[in-house]
């Protein structure tokens, strides 16, 4: 038989039992649709994360921390990460190695380092029109802002480090009651800092503090113009931008503030050390990651590169892919049983026809191929429509997720990704699964005894 004849015969046979064929294909459609949408979600998330890393230059980014153990301030010269490390007195350096401006200067001179900047963050109250929110402000040099870490959504970056303007995240501006973040650009915003104040002007608070009632704090208000609205970095941890508000570093130096953002900063201040808690380093290229990390570690600091975390994330994605595949396979297995059922029923109904086929000269192989083509066609159409279903499901979930998440200030994202290999792979996979499901029925069809079949009513 010719290929065209097999296809024509199979189409004609499937068309004769329209409802059953439709229901069987529908089973495959659901299975493939589930598998495709799950894979597309996995790939979409993977791409979003790797793209974010790449777009923002986070692949070239290293965070530097001072070495410390849980004794707050005692600096360890041994490697606390090495196996069998025991923190003994010998391991503690008498001199504290600080993350200070000297170190930052040295770091900038290292080959491959593009920018190095200290992380300066402090708590403050942010007031915009009638709303206010307590927040952590980050001081960031203007050249770092423009180095590609930050995506601007409206307006522009501040030009100099002495400019009284700031950048605010789309997420925060929405929390402050502005529906259209674009309208916030150029508006005034007030930042109230708190600082220890033992000056004469603060005598009432100092007296209250001495009596054990209150703290010797004073509050200071600063006015800024919103230069730009930026996209909130969708992750926490060692990233360059960890706050919803960025102000020029020069202005920050002149502001009264308490430079503490967490409990360890308080203890560091109590010990009298005044280094930075973190320094961010942007490299010219990822090839310098290892050499710069080594230089920093040899200098007595700890490092963290996001590119290392990316490898861990990739491992997580592999597990996620396997899990999603397993879930999708449940649906595919059910669909396969549907195919087997349909073909076995078809054999029983066409028992006499198979006998006639053999009587007029069909070989066992011809009979097998006719049924295999039927299984393959079910798989093909199941694959095509399953792909369309998966795509539609992806679009709908994407739409709903973006409506919900953008309301909370998250940027618009494509959570589903349909690479070409997934589209073709889904159809081929569907055909292969259907052919596999068709093996038993086709063997059964080929074994039909023509003499018995011809007597069959």
């Amino acid at each position, binding site marked *: *038989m*010719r290929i*065209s*004849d097999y296809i*024509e*015969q199979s189409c004609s046979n499937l068309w*004769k039992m329209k409802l059953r064929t439709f229901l069987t294909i529908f089973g495959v459609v659901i299975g493939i649709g589930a598998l495709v949408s799950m894979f597309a979600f996995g790939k979409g998330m993977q791409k979003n994360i790797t793209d974010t890393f790449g777009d923002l230059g986070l692949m070239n980014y290293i965070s530097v921390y001072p070495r410390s153990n849980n004794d707050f301030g005692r600096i360890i010269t041994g490697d606390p990460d090495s196996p069998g490390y025991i923190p003994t007195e010998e391991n503690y350096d008498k001199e504290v190695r600080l993350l200070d401006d000297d170190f930052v200067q040295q770091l900038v001179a290292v080959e491959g380092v593009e920018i190095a900047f200290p992380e300066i963050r402090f708590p403050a109250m942010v007031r915009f029109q009638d709303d206010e929110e307590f927040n952590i402000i980050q001081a960031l040099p203007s050249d770092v802002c423009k180095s590609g870490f930050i995506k601007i959504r409206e307006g522009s970056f501040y030009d100099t480090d002495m400019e009284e303007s700031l950048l605010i995240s789309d997420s925060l501006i929405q929390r402050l009651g502005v529906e259209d973040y674009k309208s916030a650009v150029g508006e005034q915003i007030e930042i109230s800092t708190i600082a220890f104040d033992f000056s004469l002007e603060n005598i009432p608070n100092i007296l209250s503090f001495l009596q054990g009632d209150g703290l010797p704090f004073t509050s200071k208000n600063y006015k800024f113009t919103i230069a730009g609205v930026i996209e909130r970095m969708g992750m926490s941890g060692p990233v360059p931008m960890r706050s919803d508000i960025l102000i020029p570093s020069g202005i920050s130096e002149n502001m009264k503030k308490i430079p503490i953002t967490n409990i360890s900063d308080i203890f560091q201040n109590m010990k009298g050390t005044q280094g930075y808690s973190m320094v961010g380093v942007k490299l010219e290229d990822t090839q310098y990651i290892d050499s710069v990390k080594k230089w920093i570690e040899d200098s007595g600091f700890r490092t963290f590169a996001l590119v290392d975390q990316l490898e861990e994330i990739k491992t997580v994605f592999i597990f996620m892919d396997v899990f999603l595949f397993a879930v999708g396979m449940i649906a595919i297995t059910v669909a396969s049983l549907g195919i087997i059922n349909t073909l076995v029923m078809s054999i029983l109904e066409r028992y*006499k*026809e198979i*006998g*006639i*086929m*053999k*009587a*007029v*000269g*069909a*070989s*066992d*192989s*011809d009979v097998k191929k006719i049924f295999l083509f039927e299984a393959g066609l079910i798989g093909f159409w199941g694959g095509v429509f399953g792909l369309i279903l998966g795509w539609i499901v992806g679009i709908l979930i994407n739409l709903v997720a973006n409506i919900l998440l953008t309301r909370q200030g998250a940027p618009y994202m494509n959570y589903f990704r349909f690479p070409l290999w997934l589209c073709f792979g889904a159809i081929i996979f569907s055909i292969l699964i259907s052919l596999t499901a068709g093996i038993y029925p086709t063997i059964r069809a080929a074994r039909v005894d*023509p*003499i018995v079949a*011809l007597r069959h009513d």
Partner: protein
Amino acid sequence: MKNDNLVVTKELSKVYSSGKIEIVALRDVNLSIKEGIFLGITGSSGSGKSTFVNLLGGLDTASSGTINVGGKFISELDKGELAHYRRHYVGMIFQSFNLISSYTALENVAFPLLFANVPKKERNKRSEEMLEKVGLQSRKEHRPSELSGGEQQRVAIARALINKPKILLADEPTGNVDSRTSSQIMQILSDLNQNQDLTVIMISHEESLLNEFADDIIHLSDGAIVDKESE
């Protein structure tokens, strides 16, 4: 032509096993069938007539003995070769017509050509010609349920002949039709035998029909040939 043996069976036996019970359907049949002959086979129910025809048609395999058709031992062929033999050497018609109910008359006639790798256009052309020969060209688009018994059997004959076989095997072809139609069918088979040199081997209960049309008649009883008549 009629002097050459087309089919020769030697010690041909068929035994069916059902658990421990063995049923002998055919017992040591030795028969030579000349090319171009019209052979009638008669006998009571269960005498082994259909088994003999099924073995000649390559639908079944012998338990012992040999069948030689045109110099080829079909008892030694594998499944694929048997399918080829059925496709090109023999045509079969049955009492119950065995047409595919969902196909039109034309599609039924063209069906064997599908397995002979004949292109669709050629299949349709040859099938129309064959239907014309059996006088059913006007009924080519009708399905079996829309045809009379005689018409259905003529479609079955057209289908059996579409691959130009050497032998036509007919298993009670007049068993399901009235006497008038029965005569028409016998006339068609006789014409094919005489005018196209087709060897016809036909099973029938009606000895009168065989006496009228067959060159030779064999009687089977309990799987063995008990009598052989020649005209």
